[in-house]
């Protein structure tokens, strides 16, 4: 998407210039179909769009239930863009690459 005029896009561009690393966190719970799908989808999109510039952190809430409240998680899977700021959230198994790219505000190559 070439939506350069919105302030968020500008902000993310500026952030990108400072720190090339995208910090993404994916919240799941156990090895469910939805969890596995989401992990696979996210990895694929990142490789395609952000090769070498991203870091994915998997958080299994079944192992760290207290994080659900601390990080304000309701739906699973939830993908959170921690860096660049601001925080962005996408829920679901990330089946649509287009929507994920839109949601993360990744400027397509």
């Amino acid at each position, binding site marked *: 998407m070439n939506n350069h005029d919105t302030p968020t896009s500008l902000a993310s561009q500026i952030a990108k210039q400072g720190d090339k690393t995208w910090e993404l966190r994916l*919240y799941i*719970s156990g090895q469910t179909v*939805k969890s596995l*799908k*989401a992990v696979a*989808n996210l990895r694929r999109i990142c490789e395609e769009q952000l090769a070498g510039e991203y870091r994915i952190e998997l958080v299994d*809430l*079944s192992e760290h*239930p*207290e994080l*659900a*409240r601390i990080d*304000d*998680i*309701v*739906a*699973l*899977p*939830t993908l959170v863009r921690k860096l660049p700021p601001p925080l*962005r*959230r*996408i*829920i*679901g*198994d*990330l*089946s*649509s690459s287009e*929507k*994920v790219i*839109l*949601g993360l505000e990744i400027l397509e190559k």
Partner: protein
Amino acid sequence: MTTNLELQMNKSSKTKRLPQLEIEKVATGVTGLDEILNGGLPKGRPTLVCGGAGCGKTLLAMEFLCRGAVEHGEPGIFIAFEETAEELAANVASLGFDLATLERDGLLIVDYVAVGRGEVLQTGAFDLEGLFIRIASSVAAIGAQRIVIDTIEVLFGALKDAATIRWELDRLFVWLKEQGLTAIITSERGDESGISRNGIEEYVADCVILLDHRITDERSTRRLRVLKYRGALHGSNEYPFLISSSGFVVFPVTSLGLQQTASTTRISTGIGRLDARLSGGVYKGSSVLISGSAGSGKTILASHFADAACRRGEKTLYVSYEESAAQIERNMESVGLDLRRWRELDLLRIESIRPTLLGLESHLWWLTQLLEEFDPSTIVIDPITSFLRVGSKSQTSSMLLRQVDILKSKGVTALFTALVPSETNEHTDVEVSSLIDTWIAASMVESGGERNRTLSVVKSRGMSHSNQLTEFVITNTGVDLLDTYVGAAGVLTGSARIVQQAIDRVRHAQEVEGLEDRRRHFDRRTGSIEDQVIALLAEYRADDVDLSRVRAAVAQVVGSDESTHFSMANGSPSAPPTPSDDREGPPR
């Protein structure tokens, strides 16, 4: 949690045998609600609280948790979808709930779920496992037994995928039941088609409570109704409620029955001769009604009652719906009652409030609060008929019944005054007489071109009492009951009584006069009889002297017959009588 779950399962196996009797309940602690629910909410099950915006759903739910934590030591979780934890804390702080302290003590977790703010991008399948994990984690952290979800429908707005949400809610409620959590789920009131906007009642089928806030006659009333309560008896009416400074209050406010203790201690009404008519005064803790038309002296009688209570050193609350405290004090001073000194000693508290200022329920609550705060042993409410300006006759009567009940349950001796519309009808417009122990009717009797005040005891439970009408007068030293004068046409009052008193005085004088006459008459008679006795004695003596002479003469004559010469030669009688002795021994 597993033990809870096992417990729950044991319960449900019992439930199969005795379905009607085994519903276990959890007291909400909300004033009045547990009575309507016959004990409380169904334990381990979700209850739906449904109502429009601003009707008090959140408050009711929060109070359920706070009371559970404070009064029953049951920790609770508040899942807030609409207000942040800070907003909630601020909102309920004014009602006396300190959420921060409860959270610190591990009795409460307020978890604000920010899902409602901002749009959430969704792609692909999702579930609400995150929310469940979150709730489960909080429940486990403090061992929660109660939970509130306020308002879960926000999810429908935030997540769009209604089918998934419905599926997940179903799972949530099954899980809540498995956990044995007693839950309150709040929901917006829907339109005509359903109870809640998103049909939450389909999941929460055990107990449904509706809250309603409506305006009638420019007065807002909040009402609560228990729409259903599976397998349990519950009050089915609409119950008024209000949000007071100390939380939610549903009326009836107290669980009463008729178990008040009955004191045998008599207390004075403040008027000695009235006490005598009640064979010693009214019972402590009883309810006294003074009914009367305008100007019949109700307030003065009530003030005497209050004064007497203060004299006994009892804290007395005087609630006036007609006059200000200053007015009452001034007016009572004119009849010799110094109420100010009791007020200065903190024995008496006069509270004046316009009846139209509050709704009936608020009045009742206001009084309940006053009772708690001041803790009086005697109360005067002057007059109860003022409430008719606020509510209908039946509403007022029902409110007053509750008021009398509350006072009786607290053992407060109460005196109510009631205005009656006319002289001929001594029944008050509000039907409280059945709850009243002693009923004194003050009335104005018109006769002979004047109005006079009378008192009579209409009824007095558990004591002998005079059934006679008595006139009473208001002097500058207070009320006094007069002697009863009964004439041919009944009890005499006013000038008729004065005339009767005058007649009685004349009669008495006449009687005294008559007796004096008779005494004098007898005095005179005694005098004359004595005179006669003296005269007769004199006569007798004279006769006696004559008799002696005759005897002497006879003796002489007999002697001369035997020796006439010898006797005549001596020239003196042989046995002369002794007249001096005779004279000193008259016959009596």
